[in-house]
């Protein structure tokens, strides 16, 4: 605090105020959701809950965890995220390491990958492919199609490139093979990059819902995001006029809130552990020598 000019202070106050507001904008919806999940049904349908529970009860949570569909979806999501991240990271680190070296045809290969970033087959071809491969109704339909993402590859390649070449040469002289170099030198050194990309993939898997609905013909196989999509979207449907039974079966707002809240927790919990790598992971790749 050496620059205590008026302008600096004004800027600083403004900065604080702005950051606090931005923080609240992110935090308050979550708080509202938590309050709803702990409130009574009557109070919610009367729009009386803001940030503090009205008619406190934990029924919604009991019902949520007693719902076998919810638990199954949670399990599917966890499996999917772990499996998907592992497979993706395996492919990406292998490919990224190779592509960070100079060799013939590297640019052509790279171009191929980037091509997929810009153009995709579209919904119908993808669907026909997945069905023809017999992946429908299996967890592989969720994990495999997105396993290789060109954007993440570029991040990793750039990260690997920042590691001094001399390090690798020294290891060669000591008799290390490519795989040893990758696992003993590159991976530990590029932990920030790997953590960042992993987080991207993890969040991606956790949040993606459309593929679950598309490829699963049995709702008990839905991942959590697809499950929530059907639960939450339902209430906004306009064309339910005929379906009294559907209206009757509609889940209560407090249960929805509880489900959304519970489902965001795991990813919120993972975040702090990866966050310390985050800034470094993104920025380092961008710095060129």
């Amino acid at each position: 605090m050496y620059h205590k000019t008026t302008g600096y202070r004004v800027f600083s106050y403004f900065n604080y105020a702005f950051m606090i507001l931005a923080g609240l904008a992110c935090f308050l919806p979550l708080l509202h959701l938590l309050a709803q999940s702990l409130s009574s049904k009557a109070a919610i349908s009367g729009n009386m809950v803001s940030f503090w529970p009205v008619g406190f009860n934990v029924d919604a949570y009991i019902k949520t965890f007693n719902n076998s569909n919810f638990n199954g979806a949670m399990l599917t999501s966890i499996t999917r995220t772990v499996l998907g991240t592992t497979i993706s990271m395996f492919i990406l680190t292998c490919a990224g390491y190779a592509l960070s070296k100079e060799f013939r045809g590297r640019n052509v290969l790279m171009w191929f990958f980037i091509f997929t970033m810009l153009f995709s087959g579209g919904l119908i071809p993808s669907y026909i492919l997945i069905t023809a491969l017999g992946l429908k109704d299996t967890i592989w339909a969720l994990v495999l199609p997105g396993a290789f993402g060109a954007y993440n590859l570029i991040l990793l390649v750039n990260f690997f490139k920042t590691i001094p070449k001399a390090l690798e040469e020294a290891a060669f002289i000591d008799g290390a093979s490519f795989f040893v170099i990758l696992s003993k030198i590159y991976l530990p050194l590029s932990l920030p990059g790997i953590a960042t990309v992993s987080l991207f993939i993890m969040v991606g898997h956790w949040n993606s819902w459309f593929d679950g609905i598309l490829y699963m013909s049995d709702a008990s196989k839905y991942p959590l995001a697809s499950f929530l999509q059907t639960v939450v979207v339902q209430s906004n449907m306009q064309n339910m006029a005929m379906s009294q039974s559907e209206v009757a079966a509609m889940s209560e707002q407090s249960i929805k809130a509880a489900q959304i809240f519970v489902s965001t927790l795991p990813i919120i919990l993972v975040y702090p552990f990866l966050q310390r790598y985050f800034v470094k992971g993104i920025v380092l790749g961008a710095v060129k020598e």
Partner: protein
Amino acid sequence: MKKRNDLWKMVSMVMLSAALVAGCSKGETASETAPASVLKDGKYDPPFTITIAKQQDENAGKYINGETLNDNVLTRWGEQNLGIKIQTTLLGGDASQYNTKLRLALTGSEKLPDVLPVYDTMLVNDLIESGQVKEITEDISTYMPDRIKEIYKQYPTTFNPVVREGKVYGMAIAPNLTEGEVMLIRQDWLDRLNLKAPTTIDEFEQVIAAFTNEDPDGNGKKDTYGFTFSGKDSYNTGWVSDPVMIFSAYTGKHLPRQWHNDNGKLTYGSVAPGNKEALAKLRDWYAEGYLNKELATQGAWDALSDFTEGKAGIIIGRPWLYDSVKDVEKNVEGAKISAYPTIQGVNGDKTYQSAQLNDGVFMFNKDFQNMEAFFLYYDKMYDAAFSTGDFKFGYAQGYDYDIVNDEVTFDPTKFNTPLEAVQGVGKMAFTKNTPSVDGPGQSYYDLANGVKADTGVLIQSASKDQTTQDGYRISYENRDVLLPNEFNGPPTPTMQNVWEQLTTMEQETFTKIIYGNEPLEAFDTFVKQWHEKGGDTVIEEVNEWYNQASETDVMTLMNLK
């Protein structure tokens, strides 16, 4: 098979993982061409499977006893009693996802289910044109059981969307005239202000004015208003939070967003002259604060929360709406809701509402051979509606009803194994709504007239809240106000181009007038533009479709005359 193996090789190369390949080698094509099943004593032997598509939110409500979509008390019942196993092979959550999945299934990448419930007229059209659905004119004539024929005879217009050149490609799912709308009013407010329920538009205005200005909840604050409804998607929602009564008061049978047969010609309700007076009224009321301030941003389902909170005094909707707003009786001490019929129009006639006849149509895979089995099963599903056979009281004891001390009960808390809420049978049955023949609420009307509750339907009706029962009774007494939309065909060519724009223009004009952002004359401009920008062509095309649809006498072909 050859081609698939090649693909697999490619995939496995990319995957670099032997474990994955092993995991994927299952998924053989199920080629179970069962030996011909024969119908013997009302049961198929050996049992066979009818596959079906279903639009259902699988996560709303839940199964009990560890059951699932394809293994529950009803699927087991079908297998044991009829030798028919219903298997859902295509499932979509909401309407748009379901349509997407049906369209994807049409690409031929997988087998289309035998039975396809379709809820979108455009998709109905596309399915017929794809040639993948079966023509069932003969099948209906031959296999449809008589008591079901009687039902379809009453609703010939439900076949309009599925008829092409004198051939029938589908049938309505459980056609039935649904219940009408009633006016739910805060009775305690009426009583406190010494008012009676309004029956004309002037009385209605007095009541909502009093609800706004005379502090009906007695808390000394001006925090209440008269009438809550939704104007987000249409001024004719057709089910809850509906303002259509106000429009109908001035336009009679010409309801907004709806086609009406005016002496043999279909006309579009939103451009009828009376709408202008209706808008003028709503505009005044809005300015006075009698209406929901945010009516244009609230969907039908959201507009009711003000009522539940105790802020609004009147809401209109189907009789079961009471279930959704009765929490106000918990939230606000002394609150009480009563159901009343909708008001009369300015010329003394009743006001009209839109009615629904069916919930989509059944279509069938062209390779599906066993229509007889389908009708056998479909007929049994009607047992609960007719209070006959296996489903005399309900669909499954301990699920939707139970017998306790020789008494049939529909109250889930009194069950032998008490449940939190009644098990929604639609979740297990092969359509999302189970068939009904009760119309706009005949059973409630009968009960009110002293008929003894001795059938499943009557007992179930008698177990509802008194206000709901009143609502249904009113709905039945006024069933003549229910007007089905006369146009239920696929969007016409011009509609596909301009309809979106026209309805947007309509919605914006109406809302702006009510909000006072545009003068009342904007309605005249809207009508003029509507006709010029494609409306006239649409009217022509719609009438052409209507004449064609009623041209061939398919009802005779199907033996439904």
